């Protein structure tokens, strides 16, 4: 009996100690405010972001608790945390999701902080506009980028073929592709990846025809004829060995950059984004550059647009909204921070930071900057944000249909018809 008592006393004593430790540490730890930050990206982006966070802590005193995931894992985690009322203070936001999050108050409007904690003097008007939902500012663009084709210059040199330039059309890609195939280098590498399942490439092609992927009302911006033409175009390129085979293209699961056709050495070109040149150069020893997507005919442009590559938004339930706004202000304005960030998230949106960054840029960054700054006649207006179901249409419809055509399970005609009817149904179900 006495032993038991002693044991109990011991237990009570130790648990009281543990409780005291837990409660005692709490308040002291919470004294300096901490912002929680969450973003998607790779190690290169994380290194730069953490460096900026250190600069912010040095300047402001508040610390930033930051974590990151790959794109595919990021969104489920963010949605789960938001649902649990545990959203981070600073979240990286994409053009595709900003409307959804804003409408559900999962991110906070920032208008009240503009001019105060959030200084946006000299901020590019278009980029600012891109972060607005129903007239209110929900996201601060972290940089402008544009879709671009990644080009393996070394492969073109080896094949003895002139690489594409800003005037190159789909027809010329076909001609060059014939020559490329005839050159038969590197075990039969093809000139271009199969772009039929690439949403940005379809978007670009449609815009050059004066159509759009989605309308401002969130409906499909093209009809079955256009979809059939698209699948037929790629069917031709595939059958003639201009683009990669169905089996090769299926290896690209839209996952890590390592499984893309250029990195795997299956193609000399593929659809990509201007800010990704930096990341691709770290994966290959070949000389890489970027150029625009092909034109549908000589002199036709307007397919490209400068889009906010990503935003920072403030969590709707954040207790430190003003501090978070200060952080955003620091992130886009501070010249030291800008130099650390470079153009890895896109071209800075404020004149003076852009000018501060330019001289120190590496060659790849320089190419990306010039590409986005000099789009000229290739540039069209910024399309409205895509509807909520766009991600599903891309992942479970466009990419699957492109494979079905490639493997011969559907004709291009059938795929085009099916795409339009099924996409319309998905859009209706989601609205």
């Amino acid at each position, binding site marked *: 009996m006495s032993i038991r008592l002693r044991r109990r006393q011991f237990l009570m004593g130790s648990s009281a100690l543990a409780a005291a430790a837990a409660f005692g540490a709490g308040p002291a730890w919470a004294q300096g405010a901490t912002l929680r930050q969450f973003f998607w990206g790779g190690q290169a982006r994380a290194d730069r972001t953490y460096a900026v966070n250190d600069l912010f802590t040095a300047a402001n005193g508040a610390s930033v608790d930051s974590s990151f995931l790959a794109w595919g894992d990021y969104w*489920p985690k963010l949605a789960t945390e938001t649902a649990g009322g545990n959203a981070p203070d600073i979240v990286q936001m994409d053009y595709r999701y900003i409307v959804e999050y804003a409408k559900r108050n999962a991110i906070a409007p920032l208008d009240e902080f503009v001019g105060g904690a959030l200084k946006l003097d000299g901020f590019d008007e278009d980029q600012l506009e891109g972060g607005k939902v129903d007239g209110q500012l929900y996201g601060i663009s972290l940089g402008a980028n544009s879709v671009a084709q990644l080009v393996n210059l070394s492969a073109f040199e080896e094949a003895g073929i002139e690489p594409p330039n800003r005037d190159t059309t789909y027809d010329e890609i076909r001609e060059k592709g014939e020559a490329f195939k005839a050159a038969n280098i590197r075990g039969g590498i093809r000139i271009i990846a199969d772009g039929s399942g690439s949403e940005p490439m379809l978007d670009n092609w449609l815009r050059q025809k004066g159509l759009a992927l989605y309308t401002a009302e969130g409906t499909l911006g093209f009809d079955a004829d256009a979809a059939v033409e698209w699948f037929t175009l790629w069917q031709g390129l595939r059958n003639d060995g201009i683009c990669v085979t169905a089996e090769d293209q*299926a290896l690209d699961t839209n996952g890590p950059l390592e499984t893309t056709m250029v990195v795997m050495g299956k193609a000399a070109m593929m659809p990509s984004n201007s800010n990704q040149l930096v990341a691709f150069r770290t994966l290959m020893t070949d000389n890489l550059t970027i150029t625009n997507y092909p034109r549908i005919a000589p002199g036709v442009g307007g397919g490209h647009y400068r889009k906010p590559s990503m935003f920072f938004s403030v969590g709707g339930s954040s207790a430190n909204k003003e501090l978070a706004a200060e952080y955003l202000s620091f992130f886009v304005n501070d010249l030291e921070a800008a130099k650390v960030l470079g153009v890895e998230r896109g071209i800075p949106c404020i004149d003076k930071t852009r000018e501060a960054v330019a001289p120190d840029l590496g060659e790849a960054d320089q190419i990306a900057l010039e590409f986005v700054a000099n789009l000229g006649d290739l540039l069209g207006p910024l399309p409205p944000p895509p509807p909520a179901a766009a991600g599903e249409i891309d992942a479970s419809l466009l990419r699957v249909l492109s494979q079905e055509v490639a*493997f011969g399970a559907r004709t291009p005609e059938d795929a085009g018809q099916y795409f339009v009817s099924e996409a319309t149904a998905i859009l209706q179900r989601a609205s």
Partner: protein
Amino acid sequence: MATQVDTSASTGAGRVASPSFWSGVWQNHAPGYLFLLPWLIGFLGLTIGPILTSFYLSFTHFDLLTAPRWAGIDNYMRMFTNDPKFAASMRVTFVFVVFSVPLKLAFALGVALLLNRGMKGLPLYRALFYLPSLLGASVAIAILWRQMFAGNGLVNQLLANFGIQGPSWISNPNTSLWTLIILAVWQFGSPMIIFLAGLRQIPQDMYEAASLDGASKWRQFWKITLPMLTPVVFFNAIIQTIEAFKSFTPAFIISGGTGGPINSTLFYTLYLYNEAFGFFRMGYASALAWVLLAIVALFTAFSFLTSKYWVHYDD
């Protein structure tokens, strides 16, 4: 003390919830329940709670960001009337189960029979053969599989020695599911260990008597080994069938989470995952999970009902 409680409980049959009954239970069993508490909290909070919640959610539309909206049986209706991907994922899963489970069991039994012959270094072989089962569900093995069955992977390099130009196994819709079936069969270790234990239980005198009567090894296998082993076969078949229905990681890794090419590796669980965490349709995903539960339960019930015709218990 104990007798006291017993009488109070039996005399108070009409009013079971009387204070004396509960305080009696508490006084007598408090330590037991306290010891049970950590498990009980986990079971109620982390298992029963989520299960009931998912049952409720299966009748709603829920996107995580806004509150669930009641949908009645919409989700179930859509699944059975208007969802080609549901049908596709069902087909893929059934093909996987129907081929991978019997092949795996046959393979496991074969290896167990070999190991049962009492060779030297048996513990080492047993461990080696069991290893894939431990590694099988891991991400690393799935990635290794992806490399092995790629267009220029190990498998095609081996085939090239015989002058065969193999396809890109994992990225061809005709062969991709088979790479997953082979991966499942390769993880035969755990049923193999159980078979081995079952084989050890068969009395040797049966074989001796059969040999004296002139029965061949082949005949002994069909007339003694297999009938005596049927309870173990039954157990393994049920466990492996459930495992196969639940299989997720290999398809997720090998297809990059897409279930491609052309939905050829779209396992039911992978479709469920994509609906939930790809497109944030938690309600629909919950309904899918309950249908999977019903299917697995039906399969198991069917196995139990038919078992009396083919499973022999010697007692």
